[in-house]
């Protein structure tokens, strides 16, 4: 379903901004010592269960306080109207086609009226429930995709294999300016040649008949089944005569977008709201609502909007407002694991623009992994989750987040908060304290690091300060870079996502990713990816990540084992270390039915309905 990992990561970064996540911190020692640190065997690295003997998975424990589904199980009424709140402080951009869009808010708008041809199950693997079915041959490289007969565009034209092929041709076209032409799509055989203009069509794609498409991929990897297929068709009867370069700014994308989803776009107020009407011809059946209104709600007015029934559901609820709203009588808060982790990382090198890969060449005391390990131990992710995110986040044990159930394992050991051990480790590694009581580097020079943190919400600043305090507590001198927090774009430019060199004064950075459907982290930590902000170059890591994508890795146990090894390597090397996992919280008006956050739910968007004419109010 999703194909563009690259893009998703960007989205992730956007999310980072809105969620205000950032870094972590630990807290003052007194308290941490107070909690019983019984070396819990694992679990998400949590350590607070004082009286539990059994190791408890903290994430699971937190999640169990919530439901996936609304308690309301009534029958939806006829002719219902639902209002959906898109929480965003900015207007949505309005590139309303999956083949061209680039912002997460646009995706929220799109999801109501368009959908992927292939559907995925709770583990983000393709299943056969979508508008198209699939099968692959023994080599795992050739996929035969069959579109169901009843799948039509909103204008009544059937969705054809040609439309699907056309989408590939547009994205792979040299004039295409959108963000979708990424590693995943480059895996299609012949698309690179087509992109360079060496071939007239993509040799790996073949239209068998009206409804059947055959795609050959260069390499068979488990990732193919987890979002590796581009699954959004583009209606050739509408876009066929258009220049590729003009498509994303055309009225067909901006004003009268078209899709195959359960609702059709009725009107768009650019950047503000969209009204949809029921698509009677929807292939799964008749949608439960007559009309849906999507409107942008500012973060500061979300709680107001849900308590007055102005919106029935929102896409994302700010965790810091949860405690003050959990008792609202008219809504129910549902939750699920967020595909997300926050982390802290160390800058170890720079990006080589000519060669397009990282070079781990920075001359910094951080090159000593003992120091990095100690700094990871110094941070208490739990206190941050509990105190700053009201227990909706908890310490992460690894980079594989709990949303990826097949691979996440709470028993993998990460770094427990243990400042004493951190100090002991530093002393053992030969560090000595200078006059100011901070550790000096191994040559006896003063050692101090710049920590860059992201602005976002009122907890960002205290969190950054708290982390610095936690490092100070183990005797490592860290300063907030330039004494201020950086806005999203500025932050990522300096950390290394811009067109320019990474800021050489940044030593430590705190960020977060929302993870894609495929668990593969090589898009974040590979040698030749820009998102490897730590600029960490490690051959063993490359090999392990490669192994996890090999044909052998179709065996789940093998792949999991590879990720386990990779996790252990990350714990040993600590170019970055994970800080928090979290829940996504969704308030739902009590009149809403057919909605679920359960990854295994068999409800689809067209099932969402309401049981009363008017929203309930608090």
């Amino acid at each position, binding site marked *: 379903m999703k194909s563009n990992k690259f893009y998703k990561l960007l989205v992730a970064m956007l999310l980072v901004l809105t969620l205000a996540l950032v870094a972590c911190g630990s807290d*003052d020692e007194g*308290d941490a010592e107070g909690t019983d640190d019984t070396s819990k065997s694992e679990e998400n690295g949590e350590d607070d269960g004082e009286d539990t003997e059994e190791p408890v998975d903290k994430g699971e424990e937190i999640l169990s306080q919530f439901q996936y589904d609304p308690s309301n199980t009534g029958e939806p009424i006829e002719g219902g109207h639902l209002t959906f709140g898109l929480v965003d402080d900015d207007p949505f951009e309005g590139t309303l086609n999956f083949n061209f869009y680039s912002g997460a808010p646009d995706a929220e708008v799109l999801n109501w009226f368009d959908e992927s041809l292939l559907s995925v199950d709770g583990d983000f693997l393709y299943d056969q429930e979508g508008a198209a079915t699939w099968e692959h041959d023994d080599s795992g490289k050739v996929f035969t995709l069959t579109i169901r007969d009843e799948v039509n565009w909103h204008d009544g034209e059937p969705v054809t294999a040609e439309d699907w092929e056309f989408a590939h041709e547009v994205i792979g076209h040299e004039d295409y300016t959108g963000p979708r032409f990424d590693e995943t799509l480059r895996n299609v055989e012949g698309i690179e040649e087509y992109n360079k203009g060496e071939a007239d069509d993509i040799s790996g794609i073949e239209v068998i008949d009206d409804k059947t498409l055959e795609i050959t991929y260069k390499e068979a990897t488990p990732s193919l089944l987890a979002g590796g297929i581009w699954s959004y068709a583009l209606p050739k009867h509408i876009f066929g005569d258009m220049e590729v370069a003009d498509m994303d700014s055309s009225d067909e994308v901006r004003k009268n977008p078209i899709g195959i989803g359960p609702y059709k776009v009725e009107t768009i107020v650019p950047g503000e709201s969209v009204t949809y009407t029921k698509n009677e011809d929807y292939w799964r059946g008749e949608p439960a609502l007559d009309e849906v209104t999507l409107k942008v709600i500012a973060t500061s007015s979300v709680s*107001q909007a849900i308590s007055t029934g102005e919106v029935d559901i929102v896409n994302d609820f700010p965790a810091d407002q949860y405690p*003050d709203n959990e008792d609202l009588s008219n809504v129910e808060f549902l939750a699920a694991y967020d595909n997300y982790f926050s982390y802290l990382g160390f800058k170890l090198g720079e990006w080589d623009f000519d060669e397009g890969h990282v070079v781990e060449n920075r001359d910094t005391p951080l090159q000593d992994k003992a120091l990095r390990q100690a700094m990871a131990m110094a941070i208490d992710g739990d206190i941050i989750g509990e105190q700053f995110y009201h227990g909706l986040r908890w310490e992460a044990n690894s980079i594989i987040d709990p949303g990826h159930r097949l691979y996440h394992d709470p028993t993998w050991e990460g770094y427990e908060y243990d400042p004493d051990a951190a100090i002991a480790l530093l002393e053992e590694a030969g560090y000595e304290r200078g006059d100011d009581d901070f550790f000096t580097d191994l040559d006896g020079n003063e050692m101090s690091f710049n920590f860059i943190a992201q602005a976002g919400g009122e907890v960002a600043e*205290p969190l950054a300060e*708290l982390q610095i*305090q936690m490092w100070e507590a183990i005797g490592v001198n860290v300063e907030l870079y330039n004494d201020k*927090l950086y806005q999203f774009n500025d932050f990522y430019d300096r950390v290394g996502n811009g067109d320019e060199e990474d800021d050489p004064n940044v030593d430590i950075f705190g960020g977060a990713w929302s993870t894609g459907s495929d668990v593969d982290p090589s898009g974040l930590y590979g040698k030749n990816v820009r998102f490897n902000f730590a600029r960490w170059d490690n051959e063993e890591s490359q090999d392990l990540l490669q192994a996890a994508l090999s044909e052998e890795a179709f065996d789940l146990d093998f792949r999991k084992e590879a990720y386990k090894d990779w996790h252990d390597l990350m714990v040993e090397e600590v170019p970055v270390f994970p800080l928090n996992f979290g829940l996504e919280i969704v308030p739902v008006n009590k009149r809403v039915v057919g909605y679920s956050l359960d990854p295994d739910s068999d409800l689809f968007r067209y099932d969402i309905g309401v049981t009363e004419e008017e929203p309930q109010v608090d």
Partner: protein
Amino acid sequence: MAKEVVETTEQNEDSNISPSGLRVFWIEILRDKLALGSLIFFVLVTLTVFIGSALLDLDEITKIDPLSRFLPPSSEHILGTDTGGREIFGQLIYGTRNSLVIGILVTAMSGTIGVLVGLVSGYFGGHTDNVLMRVLDFFLILPFLMIVIIFVSLVPKYTITSFSLIMTAFLWMGIARLVRSKALQERELDYVNASKTLGTSNITIMFSHVFPNITSIIIVNMTLSLASNIGIESGLSFLGFGFPESTPSLGTLLSYATNPTTLEKRWWVWAPAAILILLLMLSVRNVGEALKRAADAQQRRGT
């Protein structure tokens, strides 16, 4: 209106003796209970924050304590705590001190520049006046806020001094205009001409003769602008362009109120800062108003 006229008449009858110099100001303040109260309040606050900030440990105040976030006022936390578990009280003391120091610095510096430019411009008149006033016009049309915001984003680290300097660069024009117009009047008077005839140098005339004659208006103007300058730092910090968040500031405390929950349910975070800013600016203004009346014999209440 009618009543005022009556009062004025009465006062004029009272004022047989005309005390001179700073005494007039003092007498006026003593006569105006509101101004007197304001002055006492201002002095008290100033003393408290300067002594307080010398006694309190800044590191302690800015230390994050995740376990005591948003605690309401209690015996342990006199004014409660903010989002990082930091004492509001300590931040209030430090923040007020910063605001005051900046307000006073900016007023003093912009006053100095303004008086110099105004005096020179008004006293010499002609081309000098013309050139200086065009420079002044140029500064006047610059978009003040925007430039300050850009400055703040560009300068990696800024201090009270650099902050005051940049503010001063945009705040000396008002007083310069005022002083110029007064100086223009004064230079036509006989005492100036007499001095010139006697061969006194221009500088001596400007500073020893003209300047003393316009001090009252300068004092009044500077006092009134002090009132608004105290708010400058808070205003910018509120917008996120003041001092870094880790530096205690009244504006930062105020900006917590942009979170609806804090606004509604955690009044102790922002209310003290809001009240303090209001009172401080009002009190300085009250004193300034009294001085203004004192500078104009017609409006004086005291004698």
